[in-house]
């Protein structure tokens, strides 16, 4: 079949902020995480490669240790991240497993992206996981990072991963249930709100356009559109 010969696979970086997985009381909502696992497993099944960038290590660490969610010192933060990252992966693994989707943990630091050899290595690892039909769950390696790149809710990391992997689209989970945003390369205005059940059809509809070389030469917007951050 012609489709199998297509060398290029649609690559999507998905951004999930821990706050979109919390219930009204501020606790992690298993229902939302379950939904996320289903939507992303389905999108992967439809023939795309997904790179999930998820925050939440510090939040979950604080919750497990019974400490305030916004620790003051860097060391406190890093200790919490060490506890919470393991918990975060445990939860992701459990929910994705229900849809026969394997996930893997990849922790990155900002300096990787500045170094050709190290970034090449990271790219190879991520590509290898994708080819094995595994979804990498990427986070900042908070326990060893000395500078805080999580300032803008991980968007820095999302954009860096998108650049590294030559991703075609960024998909951002919104705060409201069923609400997602699709961010395209080019102008910040080139984003759209998208209903959960339309994700697969919309992305495959966009595929021919976003796989053109002249599209791929454009960078993703430096900042996420305000509408998405505030949602």
């Amino acid at each position, binding site marked *: *079949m012609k*489709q*199998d010969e297509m060398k290029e696979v649609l690559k999507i970086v998905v951004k999930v902020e821990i706050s979109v997985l919390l219930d009204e009381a501020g606790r992690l909502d298993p229902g939302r995480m379950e939904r996320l696992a*289903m939507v992303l*497993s*389905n999108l*992967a*099944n*439809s*023939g795309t490669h997904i790179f999930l960038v998820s925050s939440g290590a510090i939040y979950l660490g604080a919750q497990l240790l019974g400490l305030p969610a916004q620790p003051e010192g860097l060391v406190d933060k890093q200790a919490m991240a060490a506890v919470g990252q393991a918990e975060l992966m445990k939860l992701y693994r459990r929910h994705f497993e*229900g*849809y*026969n989707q394997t996930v893997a943990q990849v922790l990155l630091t900002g300096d990787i992206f500045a170094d050709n050899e190290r970034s090449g290595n990271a790219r190879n690892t991520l590509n290898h996981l994708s080819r*094995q*039909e595994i979804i990498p769950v990427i986070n900042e390696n908070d326990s060893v990072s000395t500078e805080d790149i999580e300032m803008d809710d991980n968007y820095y990391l999302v954009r860096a991963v998108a650049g590294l992997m030559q991703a075609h689209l960024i998909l951002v989970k919104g705060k409201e249930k069923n609400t997602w945003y699709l961010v395209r390369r080019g102008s910040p205005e080139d984003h759209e709100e998208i209903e959960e*059940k339309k994700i*697969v059809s919309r992305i495959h509809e966009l595929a021919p356009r976003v796989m053109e070389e002249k599209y791929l030469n454009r960078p993703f917007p430096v900042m996420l559109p305000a509408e998405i951050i505030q949602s």
Partner: protein
Amino acid sequence: MTVMEPKWKKTRSRIVVKVGSSTLSYRNGKINLQRIEQLAAELAGIKKSGHEVILVSSGAIAVGGGLLGLKEKPRALAEKQALAAVGQAELMKIYQKFFDSAGQTVAQVLLTRDGLEDEEKRRNARNTLTRLLEMGILPIINENDTVSTFGIRFGNNDVLAASVAALLQADLLIILSDINGLYTADPRTDPSARIIERVEELSPEIFRSAGGSGNAFGTGGMAVKLDAARITMEAGIDMIITNGEDPAIISQILRGHPAGTLFTPAK
């Protein structure tokens, strides 16, 4: 001309729905979770509105292949059976998850052809399925691929679904496929091809139409769907073949909207 109102257009009827692998998976062979979720919600809704629903589902081999990371369709029977053994459990897990969210209990029933051959075995299978329906449970039936060998196989789930419909004296069998129905000619090559809306007799002409349409689609193609139609028509049961892309078509059919091709025995 007055067409008699079919039996299944009433509030309480017994409906068998068959879905094929092509409806349950993407073109790359991987499972379409969204489609299964919609199907589960649709069937649970129909059940709640008072109908009895039996689902005949393929997909075990596709799910098994995806799970084991196979790139190609298996060919050898033993390999298919091994994949079915892995995949059937996973398929049921996924069905259970989505039906559970829709508030519907399901049960797995695996059949082989020899299990429906003699009268005692038939009675036994019928009793089990009827009991499940009485308990408000939605049975999900598949061929027991792992032990079926040549000679005892239904061979395809269209025939299995028709046999189940006959066994349970269902009012209607709906076959959800990736084709819109039975065409007068091959719609891919003949622009004048149109859907035959109603078939009352399996004439040689009908078989000619089936030969020219959609054999490359799905697992069985149209010819085996006519084998299924023969079984339902002999049992006095209506059968509809339609596109399963949007599972909401099932409740539309039950509300009386025409869809695909209706095979209804002439009186």
